[in-house]
């Protein structure tokens, strides 16, 4: 379903992705974990070409976009196969909650307004925002914004959904709901890539886990393999969540 | 240390805080948990008067700010006693990482530049950002930005620090570090109010926990009492993190 080959990305002198190869099967829920700054977001953004990789190719659903200078049409086609939940939500500030969710359906997918509205409202209800449909993003709490972002991505019903820390602002209750939703749409054959740092969540939602550090994929496998019995020293250290004694004073 | 009396706040018709009373002792780490949209952020913002409460009074360190129309000087004095880590980081976009941390020291506290720089750099090292001191916020990953926000608040060395979901973008490793830092500064007698939805984190860091829902404080007590043996039905439901069967289709 998704096939990344030798993805490289540099910001000035900062080499953020160092030749990433990755395969994701249809219906997979691939979870990417890794320390802050390891390149998870950048990788996700490369998959739908929001970030232009310096090198490498991206294949989604049999459709390949090559290298550094693809045509606009190819990029658009790629993006229409994917949806994304942003780490910083990136809601449309000038649109209400409902319009945020409808926008892609109406404009990109040309679904009639009425139908788009129905889809959107049912999804917003699902994430607990039925009351907020007519508010603007600036009037929402952090968690509410994140849920709008999730609803917006789900509404598109694409082949692939990319989640960048979709539960970072959510309380345990909501995390449960999101977990349920993801599992259910995975059953419907939608492929998902989820970046998260909530290990429990990762364990429950994933059927494959990738551990990244410093722009490399260090380790991958089943959630059990990577998260419970990691092989690499780095992964072990990452997962060992311990309270160190503080050694500094402010 | 902090004393809130009958804090009320309405956004148009949305009554978000419904007469909150709260006492926090010096050196306490008070954790606020609650569902998304329950008013946690709004409450935190009222404490340092970023949000103007419709009603009620705020006392910090013996200094009281009353009601709806306090003087500018009072508000400034209040703010100088507090520091805040924002849910959305709110870094100064036009300042580098180092400048972000130094800014309050130099401008508000009039600490000499050289000294301010030393303090800032040692804190940035502590949160693992030594390499990024000269980058701008737009060049940082989510977790990196959050850590700058934490360092910025810590640098001020105030009487009270307000944390709004300070670990939402952090990986388990970093969460451990932040936990250690918070514990250590609590020992130094700094009072902290932490909003978080990571229950494990809450349990480890808190010496008192408040559970909020719908603008009310539902329950408060030791972490053990509230998080492990909650009394109220609502709290119990909130903490029961279960995977429901999905009951909708997109």
């Amino acid at each position, binding site marked *: 379903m998704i096939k990344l080959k030798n993805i490289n990305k540099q910001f000035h002198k900062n080499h953020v992705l160092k030749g990433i190869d990755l395969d994701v099967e249809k219906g997979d829920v691939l979870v990417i974990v890794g320390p802050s700054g390891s390149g998870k977001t950048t990788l996700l953004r490369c998959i739908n070409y929001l970030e232009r990789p310096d090198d490498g190719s991206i294949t989604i659903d049999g459709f390949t976009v090559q290298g550094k200078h693809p045509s606009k049409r190819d990029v658009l086609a790629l993006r229409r196969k994917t949806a994304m939940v942003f780490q910083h939500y990136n809601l449309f500030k000038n649109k209400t909650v409902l319009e945020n969710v409808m926008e892609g359906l109406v404009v990109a997918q040309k679904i009639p307004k009425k139908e788009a509205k129905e889809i959107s409202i049912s999804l917003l209800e699902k994430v607990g925002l039925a009351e907020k449909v007519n508010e603007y993003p600036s009037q929402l709490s952090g968690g509410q914004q994140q849920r709008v972002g999730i609803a917006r991505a789900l509404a598109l019903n694409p082949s692939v959904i990319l989640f960048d820390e979709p539960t970072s602002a959510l309380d345990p209750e909501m995390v449960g709901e999101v977990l349920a939703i993801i599992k259910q749409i995975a059953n419907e054959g939608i492929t998902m890539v989820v970046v998260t740092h909530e290990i429990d969540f990762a364990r429950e939602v994933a059927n494959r886990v990738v551990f990244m550090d410093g722009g490399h994929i260090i380790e991958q496998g089943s959630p059990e393999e990577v998260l419970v019995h990691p092989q690499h020293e780095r992964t072990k250290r990452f997962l060992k969540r311990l309270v160190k004694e503080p050694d500094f004073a402010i | 240390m902090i004393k809130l009396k009958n804090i009320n706040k309405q956004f148009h018709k949305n009554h978000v805080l419904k007469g909150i009373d709260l006492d926090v002792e010096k050196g306490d780490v008070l954790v606020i948990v609650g569902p998304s949209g329950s008013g946690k952020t709004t409450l935190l913002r009222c404490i340092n008067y970023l949000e103007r409460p419709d009603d009620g009074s705020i006392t910090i360190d013996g200094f009281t700010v009353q009601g709806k129309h306090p003087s500018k000087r009072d508000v400034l004095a209040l703010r100088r006693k*507090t520091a805040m880590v924002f849910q959305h980081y709110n870094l100064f*976009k036009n300042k580098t990482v180092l400048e972000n941390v130094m800014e309050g020291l130099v401008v508000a506290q009039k600490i000499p530049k050289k000294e301010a720089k030393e303090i800032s750099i040692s804190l940035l090292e502590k949160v693992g950002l030594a390499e990024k001191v000269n980058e701008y916020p737009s060049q940082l990953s989510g977790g990196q930005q959050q850590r700058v926000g934490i360092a910025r608040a810590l640098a001020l060395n105030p009487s009270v620090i307000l944390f709004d979901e300070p670990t939402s973008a952090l990986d388990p490793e970093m969460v451990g570090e932040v936990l250690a830092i918070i514990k250590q500064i609590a020992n130094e007698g700094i009072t902290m109010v932490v909003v978080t939805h990571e229950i494990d984190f809450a349990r480890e860091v808190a010496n008192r926990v408040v559970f909020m829902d719908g603008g009310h404080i539902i329950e408060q007590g030791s972490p053990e009492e509230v998080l492990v043996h909650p009394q109220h039905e609502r709290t119990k439901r909130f903490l029961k993190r279960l995977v429901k069967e999905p009951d909708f289709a997109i």
Partner: protein
Amino acid sequence: MSSGLAGWVDLFIKVLEKLPLTLLMLGLSLFFSIILGVFVAIIRIQKQPVLYQIATFYLSFTRCTPLLVQLFLVYFGLPQLLLIFHIDINSWDRLVFLVIAFSFHTAAYLSEVFRSAYLAVGRDQLEAAYSVGMSYPQALIRIILPQAFVVSLPNLGNNIIELLKDTSLAFTIGIIDIMGQVRIILGNNHGMGMFQIYVVISLVYWGTCILIESVIGYLEKIFKKGRVSLSRQ
């Protein structure tokens, strides 16, 4: 008038001799109007009771009536008014009146430029400044204005260039600037050689404008640090 090369050069030199004066008027007026403009913008943003009404009235009057009329008001009207209070400012240099009139005029336009830029910066930056203990003026100077400045630069450029061209009104009250020089030459020639003279004056203005644009462009480059353009790809 000779239209040979010597004629052109001669004309150029004559006009260029007046350029420093034009630049002086521009610089002084700009300096004061930026300060006043920021104040008016902030008053209007904060909606402080009486000040807001005054600022809004000032804005409306200054933007909506011809600059020439304002110049007359300051140059002819103000001294008359002050004479009532036995203050005689008639002996002041004409340049002073001109700078006063132009500063007030341009400040009105700049206040709108700054207001829109200020609002574009967003409240979260202000809140962050408050949270580290800054007062409003400190937040303004260190955080908000530097960011607003970048947003406002192209508009600032627009207005500086307008101001540059407005300085040509100086001649109505007898200050011989570059435009004044041109009018005298034209008059001496009964309007002959108009084409040649307008080419020269246009080139001089354009040259000055290019100078202003380069400075603005340079500032944009420096100040846009930390900002991401939406046309990144």
